[in-house]
């Protein structure tokens, strides 16, 4: 059951220019969060600008210490306001929202493909997989715009079997799309499932690659949100359904995670 919480920020660190990692004390979130879920953060200090909360993925939990982490990349006023919060400040969140990635012992060889701000929920995912199964094989593919935006490399490296990095301009790792790296590996590997989160063009490619290779694929989608809990119906995505050709499902409640083969990518 989701809750409104006023929690204390443990630490804030600018891990790259304009990218901030937050650690927050929250027994509730650390005990209840599942990979793929997000929190909805108040960022207006009681003025009405911006009016809405901001959905941000849970990047990790420390169930013993009772903390969870998230990372924001400053984009507009909401993320900028969040970036100005400090350790010991209180943060007003709604948590834990949305569904989660399917994690199962039957998946023994997985690929994880993330781009930009889409990489954050994937760290939580692979950490949980490692806890579940010491022998799991995880190939992680991360795409960034350029070297300056490459973050959490060590965290991902230590949690993955193989870590592949691509940058658009080649300033770090492979030059080009992260999906090019996936295509290269997918022939050799025998993935049980691919998980992905990131920009829409990347997600579409990953879904296509998965389909072409007959591999299960789960996608975490983004959409502009209002309430974050399924009441206002603004955050839809188009999902194939059994009885109808398609149906508008709600990213905040039915998602953010969907099976790739059910998503009707429109634009």
């Amino acid at each position, binding site marked *: 059951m989701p809750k*409104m919480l006023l929690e204390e920020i443990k630490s804030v660190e600018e891990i790259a220019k304009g990218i901030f990692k937050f650690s927050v004390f929250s027994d509730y979130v650390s005990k209840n969060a599942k990979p793929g879920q997000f929190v909805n953060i108040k960022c207006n200090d009681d003025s009405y600008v911006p009016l809405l909360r901001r959905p941000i993925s849970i990047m990790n939990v420390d169930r013993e210490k009772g903390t969870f982490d998230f990372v924001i990349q400053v984009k507009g006023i909401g993320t900028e306001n969040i970036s100005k919060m400090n350790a010991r400040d209180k943060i007003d969140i709604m948590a834990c929202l949305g569904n989660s990635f399917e994690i199962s012992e039957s998946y023994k060889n997985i690929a994880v493909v993330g781009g930009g701000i889409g990489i954050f929920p994937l760290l939580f995912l692979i950490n949980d997989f490692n806890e579940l199964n010491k022998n799991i094989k995880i190939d992680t593919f991360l795409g960034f715009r350029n070297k300056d935006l490459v973050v959490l490399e060590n965290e991902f490296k230590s949690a993955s079997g193989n870590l592949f990095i691509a940058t658009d301009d080649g300033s770090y790792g492979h030059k080009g799309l992260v999906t090019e790296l996936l295509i290269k590996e997918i022939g050799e590997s025998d993935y049980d499932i691919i998980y992905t989160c990131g920009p829409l063009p990347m997600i579409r490619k990953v879904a296509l690659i998965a389909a072409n290779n007959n591999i299960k694929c789960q996608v975490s989608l983004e959409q502009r949100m*209002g309430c974050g809990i399924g009441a206002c119906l603004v955050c839809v995505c188009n999902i194939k359904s059994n009885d109808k050709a398609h149906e508008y499902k709600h990213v905040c409640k039915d998602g953010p995670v969907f099976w790739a083969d059910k998503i009707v990518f429109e634009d």
Partner: protein
Amino acid sequence: MKMVDLKVNIAGIDLKNPVIAASGTFGFGREYSEFIDLNRLGGIATKGLTLNPRQGNKPPRIAETPSGILNSVGLQNPGVKAFIEDEIPFLKKFNTSIIANVAGSTIEEYCEVVEMLSEQDVDAIELNISCPNVREGCLAFGTNKEGTGFLTKEVRKLCKKPLIVKLSPNVTDISEIALSAEANGADAVSLINTLVGMSIDIDERRPILANIVGGLSGPAVKPVAVRMVYEVSQSVKIPVIGMGGISKWDDAIEFFLAGASAIMVGTANMSNPRATIEVIEGIEKYLESNHFSSIGEIVGLLKTEQ
């Protein structure tokens, strides 16, 4: 200190307090039941119901504007049958009034939905004649007095519940339209629905909403809403339910003083799921500390002589 009585009776609807969750922002109450005790609400206005299920508009459906939001949901709803089967039983578990918000593309559709709901355990029907996000249908009725009058009259014939007509602010003279609803059988009017607006992504050079335009709500529209409530309550004799930008209890007091007998809280729920409860508590305190014993005492109490 004497106890304050928050009960109100509006157009035959007994509300335990004058604070109602506004249509479209509160679903059918399920989601918010996880954050607040629905038993404490005066009422819940449901998402707009149509005869058949509707998918609504393409995403994106929301844009943020200064102190407001634009939405273009466009009446996504499971249809009146699913509402009757799945949602009424859920809502009846709580001790709060159910106001079924009804929309349609044709007079026939409105009538059919109202007829079905008249047999159900709902406390009132709110006729949405003013949804700006649907091309055909409701907006056309709500923006002139003839359309409003005709639709109200037809629905009234079939409607066995208290009938609230919800007015559009996108008009030259809202009082004229309110009077027409009153003359044709409305038991109350509610206002305002959203103002038609638009927001543009200057990098993409596209409207942010796939639907191009959407409905503006939230604190930004409050001054327009208060003015319209004031105007309408000077014109009609039936009760007025006020809304538009109510986020805190003091916003609600403005509406009562302007002439509203009850109020609805919409957009505020999105950023603060406890908004309705906080508004109720604040109203109670205001009445107490100003030595009023009921809401009725402050309705329309505004001093306007100089």
